[in-house]
């Protein structure tokens, strides 16, 4: 197979079937931002150190900068653009607003997707667990206390945590 050959990739992104032809070295992050037009997912470090590129693949949170688009053929991808239900914000989005859980906002899409992944995983039971299990998402504005507040609030509403 020639290096410059493109690979057909089909994904369901935020509920929509999408098809692309991509070079082998295109990351999922670059596909989302540059081919799918979904720039909500941010490129921070591009090295898996900041979490700004966090998306959900089949419901699991991953760093989209560290996986190739061709490796995600056939998967269901959810980005920050797919969290709300039309005009109805996802509860974690509303909680981020209510708790003042962001300042500049650059890390926020990754924080939101990571928080949804955390709740899907179901391993966090208190605020300390939330802090530890959100540690893959850096916030250089330092909104960590409010981010933890927001996640604990939504988990509490679901009865998964003694907030």
């Amino acid at each position, binding site marked *: 197979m020639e290096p410059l050959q493109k690979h057909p990739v089909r994904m369901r992104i935020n509920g929509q079937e999408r098809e692309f032809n991509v070079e082998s070295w295109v990351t999922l992050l670059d596909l989302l931002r540059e081919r799918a037009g979904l720039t909500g997912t941010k490129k921070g470090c591009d090295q*898996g150190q900041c979490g700004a590129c966090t998306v959900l693949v089949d419901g*699991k949170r*991953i*760093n989209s900068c*560290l*996986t*190739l688009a*061709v490796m995600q053929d056939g998967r269901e991808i959810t980005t920050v653009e797919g969290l709300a239900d039309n005009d109805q914000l996802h509860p974690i989005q509303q909680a981020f607003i209510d708790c003042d859980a962001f300042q500049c906002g650059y890390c926020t899409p990754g924080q939101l997707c990571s928080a949804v*992944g955390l709740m899907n*995983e179901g391993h966090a039971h208190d605020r300390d667990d939330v802090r530890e299990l959100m540690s893959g998402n850096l916030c250089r504005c330092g909104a960590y206390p409010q981010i933890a507040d927001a996640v604990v609030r939504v988990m509490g509403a679901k009865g998964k945590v003694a907030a």
Partner: protein
Amino acid sequence: MNPFTFTPAANLDAAIAAASQGARPIAGGTNLLDLMKEGVMRPAGVVDINHLGLDEIEANADGGMRLGALARNADTAYHPVVRKRYPLLSAAILAGASPQLRNMASNGGNLMQRTRCVYFYDIGTPCNKREPGTGCPALDGVNRQHAILGESESCIATHPSDMCVALRALDATVQVRGPNGERSIPFAEFHRLPEDRPDIDNTLQPGEIITHLDLPDADRFMAHSAYIKVRDRLSYAFALVSCAAALDLDADGTIRAARIALGGVAHKPWRVEAAEQALVGQPAGEQAFVAAANVLLAGARGHGQNDFKVPLARNAILQALIIATRGTGSAPGASQGDPA
């Protein structure tokens, strides 16, 4: 990234054939793609091994467990049988990386990850691991993260894994398959010391692919194990020093058997069986633990910025053994979710 061919392997034989031709197997990709972006690794081809199965996490009839090489780190750490029978392994995995990375990273890939030495990562500098014969700037350069044991004049890099420290303490076996068939590699012999070939991290032969990790029965250590990780921030950082400790104690607190392994101090997880033998028959307590630490750290030396690691390692060993004596799950500090 440089252009490369991407080939999904339909089965293990195809993956082995591709790897034998020089293609790099990719599973989670969390370290390989990072290294490829930095230009540290520039494979002409990548073979995707994610569709080979090999993702089982199963208890064996003999009291051990078999972990598929393609099972993810998170699925392994949170598996109920792993948590119950190998709390040391679960704690070590959850001490590493971030939830996102643990969701991606495979068990086999964890073994294959490469050092985070800054010179190895910086292609503008010499590095004997990256380009043999060019030299080692870390010897008298930025070496705060570097080795204090088993290093050579060619390389003082450390192996970055937490999971591997627990696997070493638990006497895991690495099952591999290659062009010449299947082979079992004791964990002690999987990673190697740098000597004069720091470019070779491990004893895998060309074309060989990890298929499983086998863990022997370790029920006698279940109740008294601890993984201590000392790092620059509370979470999501590589270890300066880590210690996996497990004790098998009599009802009166006498040590029947012990396991101690260190991370962050050498080119491979560091274990000295004589240190464990020194504990057998002794009452679990500081006197015995100090003696064991002295054996484990014999010959340890710093290289300037990492001199502090020698006393830090000693304290980590003592703390891990004290916490293990108190009981599994009694460690203070960072929560890891779902406390055991």
